[in-house]
């Protein structure tokens, strides 16, 4: 869908349409200033900041433990991954040991969180394309996962279960059985998704060849996560910079060569299967032992990591989430910067969208799986 020269030149035929902060398919408060000619998008300028809540300023006025609730409110769909990332970053900076059981439990919880985030995305993406029913089915599966995580962490969405040196609550004895039940239910869903959605002619027409991103464009914008893997680049922080207990488990990084909206859908579906495989291996090898390191500082105030700067990267459901943590030896971080994946993925919209129709614009934005408070921080 290349843009012919005359499309760009005469400005009097174009008009700007505000896909405003309140729009059914912007998933939160994002405003897209679309310059349109008829139905064709000439240029797009994402306007963000409508849910800026000053996480980074709050990090400087709170101790390491007080900042825990903020972490899962940045990207509330992979809140557990963000919470554990903050905990692991501080553990690395202050070199706090973590017991085996906690490491494996963290992988299990993080992968369940990833699946629940992808499930919600599948439903929301289909709703953007006009099919409302899949949203209720995938949401139902997500409720199964959320119910399971609730028994361990106590919350449905904004988790705060990580502690420096382990987790706040141990997995109860019944957890592995219930977790396997959820896995069985999810695995029964993949063929249904394939039959109902992938093979659906209208879905294929709406998504194939739409919003194509090449690897070079991804590099230009710093795109990471499923959007990058759909352009054929097998970059995943769990493989590139292994952390926690991930090196112990065998899993592959699904990629697709096309780089269009359909490829992003396929990558996320394949990723959910990979997460199930990781969880299975982790459940088989779940070691006994304490969930929290004895004598570790836990949530007490006296945690004073040594001075220094740390870049700690984690693979969230949307891409590479990096925490740049600077400590001057005090009880509060001197500076905490959060490199969120959707920040770069959304900026890449300015390359993907020109030339597509309004309906494609909605499909492309949906395929990026954007969560606004993560971008606005």
């Amino acid at each position, binding site marked *: 869908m290349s843009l012919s020269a005359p499309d760009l030149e005469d400005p009097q035929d174009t008009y700007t*349409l505000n896909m405003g902060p309140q729009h059914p*398919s912007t998933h939160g408060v994002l405003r897209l200033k679309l310059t349109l000619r008829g*139905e064709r998008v000439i240029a797009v300028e994402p306007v963000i900041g409508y849910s800026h809540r000053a996480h980074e300023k709050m990090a400087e006025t709170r101790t390491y433990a007080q900042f825990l609730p903020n972490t899962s409110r940045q990207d509330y769909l992979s809140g557990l991954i963000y919470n554990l990332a903050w905990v692991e970053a501080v553990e690395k900076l202050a070199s706090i040991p973590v017991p085996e059981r906690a490491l494996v439990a963290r992988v299990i919880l993080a992968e369940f969180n990833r699946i629940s985030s992808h499930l919600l995305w599948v439903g929301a993406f289909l709703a*953007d394309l*006009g*099919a409302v*029913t899949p949203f209720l089915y995938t949401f139902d599966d997500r409720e199964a996962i959320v119910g399971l995580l609730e028994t361990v962490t106590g919350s449905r969405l904004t988790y705060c279960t990580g502690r420096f040196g382990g987790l706040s609550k141990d997995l109860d004895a019944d957890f592995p059985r219930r977790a396997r039940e959820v896995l069985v239910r999810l695995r029964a869903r993949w063929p249904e998704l394939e039959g109902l959605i992938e093979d659906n002619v*209208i*879905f294929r027409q709406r998504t194939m060849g739409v919003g194509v991103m090449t690897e070079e464009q991804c590099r230009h914008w710093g795109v990471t996560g499923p959007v990058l893997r759909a352009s054929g680049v097998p970059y995943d922080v769990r493989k590139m910079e292994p952390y926690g207990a991930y090196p112990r488990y065998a899993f592959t990084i699904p990629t697709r060569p096309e780089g269009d909206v359909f490829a992003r859908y396929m990558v996320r579906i394949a990723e959910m299967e990979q997460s199930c495989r990781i969880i299975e291996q982790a459940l088989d090898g779940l070691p006994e032992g304490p969930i929290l390191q004895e004598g570790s500082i836990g949530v007490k105030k006296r945690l004073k990591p040594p001075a220094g700067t740390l870049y700690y990267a984690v693979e969230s459901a949307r891409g590479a989430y990096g925490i740049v943590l600077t400590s001057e030896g005090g009880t509060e971080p001197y500076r905490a910067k959060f490199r969120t994946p959707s920040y770069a993925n959304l900026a890449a919209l300015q390359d993907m969208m020109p030339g597509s129709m*309004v309906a494609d614009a909605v499909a492309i934005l949906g395929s990026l799986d954007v969560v606004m408070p993560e971008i606005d921080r």
Partner: protein
Amino acid sequence: MIDFVTTLAIGTAVIMGYLSVNVLFLVWLERKVSAYIQRRLGPMEVGPQGTLQTVADMLKLLGKQLLTPIAADKAVYWLAPVMVFIPTLCLASLIPLSGAEAFADQPYGLVVIIALSGLTVIAIFMAGWASNNKYAVLGGMRSVAQVIAYEVPVLLAALSVVLIAGTMNLRGIADAQAHGGGGLPFLLLQPVAAVLYFIGITAETNRAPFDIPEAESELVGGFHTEYSGMRFALFFFAEYTNMLVLGALGATLFLGGWHGPWLPGPVWLLLKAYALVAVMMWMRWTFPRLRFDQLMSFAWKLLIPVALVNLVVTALVLAVWR
């Protein structure tokens, strides 16, 4: 003269009364069908099984404030909901409910109906244009293009039925299927035309997967973005009435109208019409939406050639057979 006026008055009253009750029923049915497909309960609290839910909706919409955007084209803005409503009413009066119907005895009933069903799109475009909202204008233009593209296959499908029935009079067509045509409903004789007709009326009533004029996820509210209260309800009213009427027309053309064993005439016709409406509702909750240009190419490049070929083949077969 007197009896003409009285029949006219009684006829309109009956049709108006039935259609408004029908809209309440159809909206309730739509929410229950969607709830069934999505494995949930749907309206339950208001009245037994939520039957009074749509009554509550209508009353609430009656009590809403009618806003008019300042920069809107006031006259056209006010006229659009009324305009969208009138053609569907006239359509309803032309459908032959049973043999003795006085209204439906137009020699060219089919032509009148096809012409009237094209009028609703003018009102939709008026609504889109007058509300001075970019989304509404986009929705209005899309609906014009869509109805033009899908009017032709509906017309050609109806034409191939007329070829077999030999008359444009709807009662004649229905009778042809009962006795003259060997009692076979035209659905069996003309399966291709029936499918084309069904796709055409789904697009004409702006129902998914062809609901691009009021595509919620793209154009916020499409052509009725700026309408509130009872005006918005009128668009709702027109859409569901249109659905029922075109369904009834489909029943007359392809399923033998009011002919059927045991039950009286009108009940058969309504049963068949509601069956078609239920299929339309079922389609809405299962398919994603087509993109605008795909929709157009689907109509111009696929439906219309097929309809033409079907027409020619029917003509040849009839010529040989007769």
